[in-house]
């Protein structure tokens, strides 16, 4: 029987949310022992499908067959017991418990008490070649180690199918390579893996089969070898794009910003210059101090003793408020926690930095507030039902545009973008790049942090490598090779 070769069969599954068809007759077949990629822009329906499989949502129509059995209703714990694990982007671990306890959370008795738990946890971790101490606190682990714990947890349930949702988003390239090795091992053990990612390189590297989704539909399913990168992107966004990056700007002028002797516990002697019309990329591993540099510059963290000059004049920036006054803007790393007020309207989120300019005698002019929101929604092509829609309901790309729009309204001299394209789709990425170029063409400057090296190299006029809190190199990305830059970034 052909069906038994498939660990998972999804047939004509539909899911409706108020006003949206999140999934429209979605069908796919996942054979045993393959790595099955699912790609699609945000809002394509990937997460909804995964949530139906794991029992978080209920499907409205269609059938799901897992391991030969038709699944009607399920809950996350049922799904786990059947052998279907999901590893979410934000891990599902208890930070204040040990590794072993996390792996066998809620099953101490079955796993033979505390000793049995740790022994079995050790064995599971060994089986994927991980050396993490099972007595270590999960909160002290790195993102990659947490992922290993999640994988061990999935294995502890004897999972036949492991779904990984954006597994690489918080990994360095070295950690990602290790993950690749483990994925191959799991596949060799006959475990099927569904690999959801925005990063097409990874899909090509790890996956055997790939399904492309768009707007709740399955657009195509093919063996990876039969697809090119350009075809995949075209299917994801429903149109051809010629380039992933807009042409690089060349309008670098005089020195605009100068930072001298920035020292903290993590940062050592950070001094650099930023020119008018320049996009400056900061490259380094996660935790190397990239975000700390820009947070210190922006006044978000308490730092003293350094000197900041803008247009040659010393400016004192000790709070984001002062930074804003000095002409800086920040699009922070974590869109939902630091950037947006997700429960507020698109309008509030766009206008919040500009409100103090619309104020007379302490009273905010609500008419100009509306104008600003409309102007930025139009200028940035934010896809939203209205300015009064809740920003949390928009897709990642459109949310990011709201934050960028917040600063565009102030015409910042220097816009700092920390991981500006994390978790947003290809189409929206391109639009963010175009916005960056527009800022520098209008005489501003951009500092960009990104873990995606190709992005930094294609967008920046100059790149600084950061390693262990120091600036270790300066490159012209048009001349330097990737390996030269990575060499300095790893240290």
């Amino acid at each position: 029987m052909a069906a038994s070769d498939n660990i998972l069969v999804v047939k004509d599954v539909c899911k409706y949310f108020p006003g949206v068809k999140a999934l429209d007759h979605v069908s796919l077949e996942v054979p045993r022992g393959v790595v099955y990629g699912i790609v699609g822009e945000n809002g394509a329906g990937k997460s909804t499908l995964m949530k139906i499989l794991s029992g978080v949502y209920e499907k409205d129509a269609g059938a799901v067959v897992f391991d030969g059995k038709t699944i009607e209703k399920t809950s996350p714990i049922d799904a786990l017991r059947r052998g279907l694990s999901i590893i979410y982007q934000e891990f599902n671990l208890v930070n204040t418990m040990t590794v072993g306890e996390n792996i066998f959370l809620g099953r101490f008795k079955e796993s033979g008490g505390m000793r049995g738990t740790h022994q079995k946890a050790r064995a599971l971790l060994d089986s994927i070649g991980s050396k993490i101490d099972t007595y270590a606190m999960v909160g002290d682990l790195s993102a990659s180690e947490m992922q290993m714990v999640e994988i061990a947890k999935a294995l502890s349930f004897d999972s036949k199918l492991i779904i990984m949702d954006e597994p690489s988003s918080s990994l360095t390239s070295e950690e990602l390579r290790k993950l690749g090795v483990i994925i191959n091992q799991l596949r060799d053990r006959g475990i099927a893996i569904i690999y959801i990612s925005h990063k097409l390189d990874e899909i090509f590297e790890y996956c055997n089969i790939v399904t492309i989704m768009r707007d709740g539909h399955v657009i195509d399913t093919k063996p990876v070898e039969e697809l090119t990168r350009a075809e995949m992107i075209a299917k994801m966004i429903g149109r051809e794009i010629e380039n992933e990056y807009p042409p690089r700007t060349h309008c670098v002028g005089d020195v605009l910003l100068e930072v001298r002797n920035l020292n903290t516990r993590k940062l050592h002697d950070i001094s650099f210059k930023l020119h008018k019309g320049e996009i400056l990329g900061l490259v380094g591993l996660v935790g190397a101090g990239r975000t700390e540099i820009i947070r210190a510059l922006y006044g978000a963290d308490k730092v003293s003793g350094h000197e900041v000059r803008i247009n040659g004049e010393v400016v004192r920036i000790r709070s984001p408020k002062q930074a804003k006054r000095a002409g800086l803007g920040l699009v922070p790393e974590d869109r939902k926690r630091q950037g947006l007020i997700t429960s507020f309207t698109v309008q509030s989120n766009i206008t919040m930095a500009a409100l103090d300019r619309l104020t007379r005698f302490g009273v905010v002019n609500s008419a100009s507030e509306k104008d600003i929101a409309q102007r930025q929604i139009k200028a940035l092509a934010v896809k939203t039902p209205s300015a009064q829609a809740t920003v949390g309901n928009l897709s990642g790309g459109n949310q990011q545009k709201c934050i960028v729009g917040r600063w565009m309204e102030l015409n910042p001299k220097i816009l700092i973008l920390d991981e500006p394209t994390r978790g947003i789709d290809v189409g929206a990425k391109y639009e963010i790049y175009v916005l960056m170029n527009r800022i520098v063409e209008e005489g501003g400057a951009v500092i960009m942090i990104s873990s995606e090296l190709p992005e930094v190299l294609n967008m920046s006029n100059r790149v600084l490598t950061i390693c262990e809190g120091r600036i270790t190199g300066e490159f012209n990305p048009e001349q330097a090779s990737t390996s030269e830059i990575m060499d300095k970034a790893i240290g």
Partner: protein
Amino acid sequence: MSELSIKKNKSVARVISHNLVLIVIVLLIVVTAIVEPKFASASNLTNVLRQLWPLPFVALGMSFVIIGGFIDLSVVGIISLCSVVAVSLIDPLGQVGAILCAILVGGLLGYINGTILTTCGAMIQAEVLFITYGMSSIYMALGLIFTNAETLRIARATKPITIFTALGSGTVGVIPIVLIVFIVILLAMYFFHTKTLAGRSISLMGGNKDAAFLAGYNVKRTMRMVYAISGLMSGMAAISLVARTTTATATCGTGFETEAILCVVVGGTSLKGGKGNVIRTMLGVVLITLLGNCMNMLGLSTYMQTVMRGAVLVVAIWLDNRKGQ
């Protein structure tokens, strides 16, 4: 056809869920009036309006703290201490001076709370809860030390107490003077919250402190302001309480913190912060007060009334969380 009726059903459901408090209030009035006709009598309603104070003031101040994403248990201590201050200053300063002083002391104590919270970096709800609880004990204890736990009476003052009498029992037509004063303050605070930058920054802070901070708001200052507002309102609450009861004790504010939080939450302001407004809180005040009165009229025991209050709070939070999904 069927889709149309679903849409209609949905919009009906939305109207109901948006005006739930109002609907419950109307239902409560209708049902109680039928079961117990005395409920709708003029004397009962006047009585309710007179017994209402100081809750509306406390709830008004508490709204700002909760919209800002925090909570304030110190209102108990502030109301108590301000009552004591108000009564004991009538003789030395006269009634106007005593009232102004008491309100200012309230604002100052609130500001001190805010400053303590910001300087010790209390940013999570549990810390805020216990620090304000601790401050409340301190304020209450100060009052106890000052009064030797005795009851102060405004009637003992040698100077005129006409303002207190007017606030306590004076009316314009049938409307109590204190209600008129309150409505003026309420409207001013509503304008402050929705139209001014300072008011808006409270909602932004409640929605997401980090985002507000990075967008250039002084979150610590907003936090101090929020507690100062709560303190000011507690000061006014103290005046309205003294005016109604004509006495002050160093523990007379006890219980108003939970009542106020109850009103805010029942009114539909989320404990998660960011959402809500002061008008909604007033609906909560009306509902909770009516509920108390109805239960009295229907002869429910005080224990049973406490059970009902607890149940209302749980249901309100539950409904709020359902809305969030």
